């Protein structure tokens, strides 16, 4: 693992302890997840107890301690999305991808996750694919999105 990348990220925030969340976000962007080695290294470089860094990393849904796939699909299961059928969308995705929420396909192409609200309830049900929000999802729309994703 290239820990110099972690050093670069920390330097960008001037070794500021308070910036730990932003640092973790950048580490995740770099490695696509939070590797144990990177967390341990960042904690020691910033002189923050590893316990604190680990607490943060496991607290936020946006962080993942497991390697994520190349593409990330996040299904919102907030109240508004839920009543508009988000569960059915999620089940369809699980069926099509052959994985459960929180898992990654064996070929490391797609990770499927859920979130409890994205704050865009009017668009519900929402599915986020690689940072792009797809509102008013339907079964048909899910099919076409998966088709596009397979070509990428």
């Amino acid at each position: 693992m290239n820990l110099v990348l972690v050093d670069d990220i920390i330097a960008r925030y001037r070794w500021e302890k308070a910036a730990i969340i932003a640092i973790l976000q950048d580490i995740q962007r770099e490695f696509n997840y939070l590797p144990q080695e990177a967390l341990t290294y960042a904690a020691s470089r910033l002189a923050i107890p590893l316990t604190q860094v680990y607490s943060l990393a496991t607290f936020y849904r946006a962080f993942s301690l497991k390697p994520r796939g190349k593409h990330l699909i996040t299904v919102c299961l907030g109240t508004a999305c839920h009543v508009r059928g988000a569960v059915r969308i999620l089940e369809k995705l699980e069926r099509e991808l052959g994985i459960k929420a929180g898992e990654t396909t064996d070929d490391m192409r797609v990770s499927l996750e859920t979130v409890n609200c994205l704050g865009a309830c009017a668009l519900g049900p929402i599915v986020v694919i690689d940072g792009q929000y797809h509102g008013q999802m339907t079964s048909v729309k899910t099919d076409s999105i998966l088709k596009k994703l397979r070509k990428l």
Partner: protein
Amino acid sequence: MVSLTIDGNVVQAEERTPLIKIAEKLGIRIPTLCYHPALEPYGTCRLCTVEVVKKGRARLVTACNYPAEEGIVVHTKSERVIKARKLIIELLLSRCSKAKVIQELAEEYGVKEPRFGEGDEDCILCGLCVRVCSEIVGANAISFTSRGIDREVSTPFHIASEECIGCGACAYLCPTDAIKLEDIKGTRKIERWDTSRPLQRCSICGNYFAPVAQLEYIKNRLNLPEEIFQNCPNCRRKSYAEQVAALGHI
């Protein structure tokens, strides 16, 4: 200084003193599982819930972290408080139905069968172990991880922590006895943290008396005589007594 009323007693207290401390001085017992006078209040167990009336408005607050304010009226045993406390105990009992301390509280408050099931979890997430490890010991070996129903106390990555010095302060403070500490044949084991630490043998009697890592930790921080790290407290006491006796009558 501010003046406030607790259960009808008008008292003076330093501003911002936690209510639980003032009540204790008055001999009013407020139940708690997560408060310890040596640690920062945390307000997680909610058991110390009391009613505070301020500017004519009454609300439930936790006495361990609610600061003394001028003119407030505190009720620690009002009907509303007891009702709230009963529910808290019922919830705790649902989570940890086998914990003795919670069974005793349930008995005291007349909580019978918890309506929310009888879980066999042993940790109530009071955070005493986490706080003593970081605030007093300074080892930072354990912390809260995850959140919501997955929240638990553990070492980073759930693997044996390098930071743990095996002092056992966590096990000592745990109200539900969820942290088991065992000294077997020169090794201290804390199973919950997946930790084992070799113990130091007393150079006089040969008994094991403290984890080597803990002694090293203290040695690096305090300038203490070497014998403290070599001899067990019993042998040291004996040797000091002998030294005093050797001086004879002064």
